[in-house]
């Protein structure tokens, strides 16, 4: 409680963080009110920006809507003008807010989950398994985020058939750490059960991958290009969180109350979930949620490069890539099509700025070396 009051007091002292809060609240409101602010023309597919014809030249803000069907749904003017292909910029910006939140929240949540799981295993068990996991995070961190994400987005197939071999691999990725830790720690109840499972998983891999048996498909996932971006960004993002969680767990693991709960006979699972995590994850979760801004920035960059959201989807980065042919219009009339890139760009910039302002304030508040001075 005193922690909360301290945080609030520090935040009041920093005007920038207040601006950050206002911006984030503003965008949250836009995202929630999107169907009111910009009623979808096609109810079944609200994320697709509506076309007002297919003419190539953008039209300025305030131009009337020409398509009679779209007029009948209540749209009279293009508030922010139209982009290449007569896509309505206002509609794209409003619904793009939802896309941004969806990408940001989902990517951070998924990578945080992977990060917490791997960080707990790594920090609590230590030894070989810690070494392996840390080297693995080294490898992923050795790539600049955008570039690895680019490679992954391209590599992920649109239709992802999941065969037995892949499931075996996924199971092994989860249970192999437990298997290794069982060699180093005593075997008990659920862990013995998991040892059995992981042996099964390894057998499955041997069966399908090494012997080269034809794959047995279990199910196939339909990946839209936005799903690919989500997966790629989550896979790129987790190692950072793993590192932090591991460090925190290493710090807390030495405390007396952990020793005590071990002495009482708590299982590893109980110690991790009841004693270690509650004492370690809050700062990490807060910091991670403030990463939403940078995740959205990365996703926008992918969209700008043409490998993000599908064509015509409400997505800020993509809307700027539509503007690329309309930036240079000769010296006589330099900013003829300013609305095609300034408006969506401002949306991205202010959205990210809001999260970063909040993040900056919290970084100071949570930094133990700078506190209470």
């Amino acid at each position, binding site marked *: 409680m005193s922690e909360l009051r301290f945080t609030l007091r520090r935040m009041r002292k920093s*005007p*920038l963080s207040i601006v950050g809060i206002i911006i984030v609240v503003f965008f949250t409101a836009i995202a929630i009110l999107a169907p009111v602010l910009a009623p979808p023309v096609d109810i079944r597919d609200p994320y697709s920006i509506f076309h007002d014809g297919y003419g190539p030249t953008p039209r300025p803000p305030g131009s009337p809507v020409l398509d009679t069907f779209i007029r009948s749904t209540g749209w009279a003017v293009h508030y922010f003008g139209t982009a290449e292909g007569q896509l309505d910029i206002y509609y794209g910006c409003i619904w793009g807010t939802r896309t941004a939140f969806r990408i940001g929240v989902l990517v951070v949540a998924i990578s945080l989950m992977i990060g917490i799981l791997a960080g707990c295993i790594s920090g609590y068990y230590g030894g070989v398994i810690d070494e392996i996991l840390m*080297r*693995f995070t*080294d*490898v*992923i961190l*050795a*790539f*600049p*985020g*955008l*570039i*690895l994400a*680019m*490679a*992954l*987005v*391209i*590599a*992920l*197939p649109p239709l992802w058939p999941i065969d037995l071999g892949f499931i075996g691999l996924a199971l092994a990725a989860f249970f192999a750490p437990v298997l290794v830790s069982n060699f180093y720690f005593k075997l008990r109840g659920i862990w013995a059960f998991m040892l059995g499972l992981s042996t099964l998983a390894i057998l499955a891999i041997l069966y399908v*991958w*090494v*012997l*080269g048996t034809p794959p047995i498909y279990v199910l196939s996932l339909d990946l839209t290009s936005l799903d690919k971006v989500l997966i790629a960004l989550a896979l790129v993002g987790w190692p950072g969180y793993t590192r932090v969680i591991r460090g925190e767990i290493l710090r807390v693991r030495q405390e007396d109350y952990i020793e005590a709960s071990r002495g009482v006979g708590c299982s590893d699972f109980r110690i991790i979930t009841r004693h270690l995590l509650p004492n370690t994850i809050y700062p990490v979760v807060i910091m991670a949620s403030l990463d939403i*801004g940078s995740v959205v*920035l990365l996703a*926008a*960059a992918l969209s*700008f*490069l*043409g*490998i993000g959201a599908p064509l015509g989807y409400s997505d800020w*980065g993509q809307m*700027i890539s539509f*503007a*690329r042919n309309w*930036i*240079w*219009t000769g*010296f006589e009339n*330099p*900013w003829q099509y*300013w609305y095609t*890139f*300034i408006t969506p*760009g401002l949306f*991205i*910039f202010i959205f*990210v*700025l809001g999260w*970063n*302002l909040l993040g*900056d304030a919290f970084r100071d508040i949570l*930094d133990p*070396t*700078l506190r209470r*001075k």
Partner: protein
Amino acid sequence: MGLAEFMVRRIILLIPTLIGVILLIFAVTQLFTPEQRATLYITSEKQMKEIDSIIRQYHLKETIFVQFAGWFSQLLQGNLGYSKTGNGPVLSVMLRKLPATIELVLFSIPITIFLGIYLGVRAAVNRDRAVDHVTRTISIIGWSLPTFWLGIMLIAIFFSGLGWFPPERMGTQAFNYIYLSGNWHHYTGLLTIDGLLNGQPWISLDVLKHMVLPTITLVTIQIALIVRVTRSSMLEALGKSYITTAKSKGLSNKEVINKHARRNALIPTMTVAGLLTAGLLTGVTITETVFNIDGVGRWAAVAAGGGGTVPDVPAILGFSLFAGIVYIVANLVVDILYAYVDPRIRLG
């Protein structure tokens, strides 16, 4: 532990990461179809038509271990495949396009570091005063700006509007002289230096003028990192007892800051230089695309299907491998410098 021993130890520690990077790239290749994977083994355009025989030759439909052996032996021979978008083998295309990127990076790194350190120190010394707030606001704004949008806005203002600094790498006149006149010798590949070596300083000037906007873009998005780290490590250093000692000895404020606090505060700043490299590799990809500079970054972006074509798989994987290795080497250099400057690291 001496410095030499530290270096050897650090380089040995690098091997598992390097193996991991190679394995990860290989794992990514496994997500492609055998036909797409076959392009990784091709060295000329002619072979593009013989994909089926290549699939058979390199056992691309066999088990993962057989495939890895084949791929890795090609990698060791420097064969990374044929890039459709670059019209040549990946390695030679990369070497051809690298100088433009290096030139851009060479201009932006020193500006980022020195300006960043200067601003960070100023902000820390004047903590919670106007200078601090302004510096932090500017650096947060830079951190939040989408690279591509900043580039577009700079072009719109300083090229379309004011006509001061053009995009692309050089003007038509310079292009004609370099590629069509036949009098041009490629000494370093860096046009600013080659211009002087060829006795054509106007080319250097032209290239410099074209470099202004991309450099501003890269500096603006990178500088926040340096400012933030310098500021917080400077704040930490200013709170140490040796600062109190220095002050109580009667040293002037300037001397305390320059000789005692700043030197110690710069050590943590060095460690983020590795992160700076990662940011630059990312930034260069987008900056070169926006400003239409023919470097490795734009090539990677085009290869990824920026033009709406089929992705150029060998180019993307080659560039990822290159980026991974650059980043690892940069971190190695930073670590060694770090140990050199701060003996506690290698002794501890």
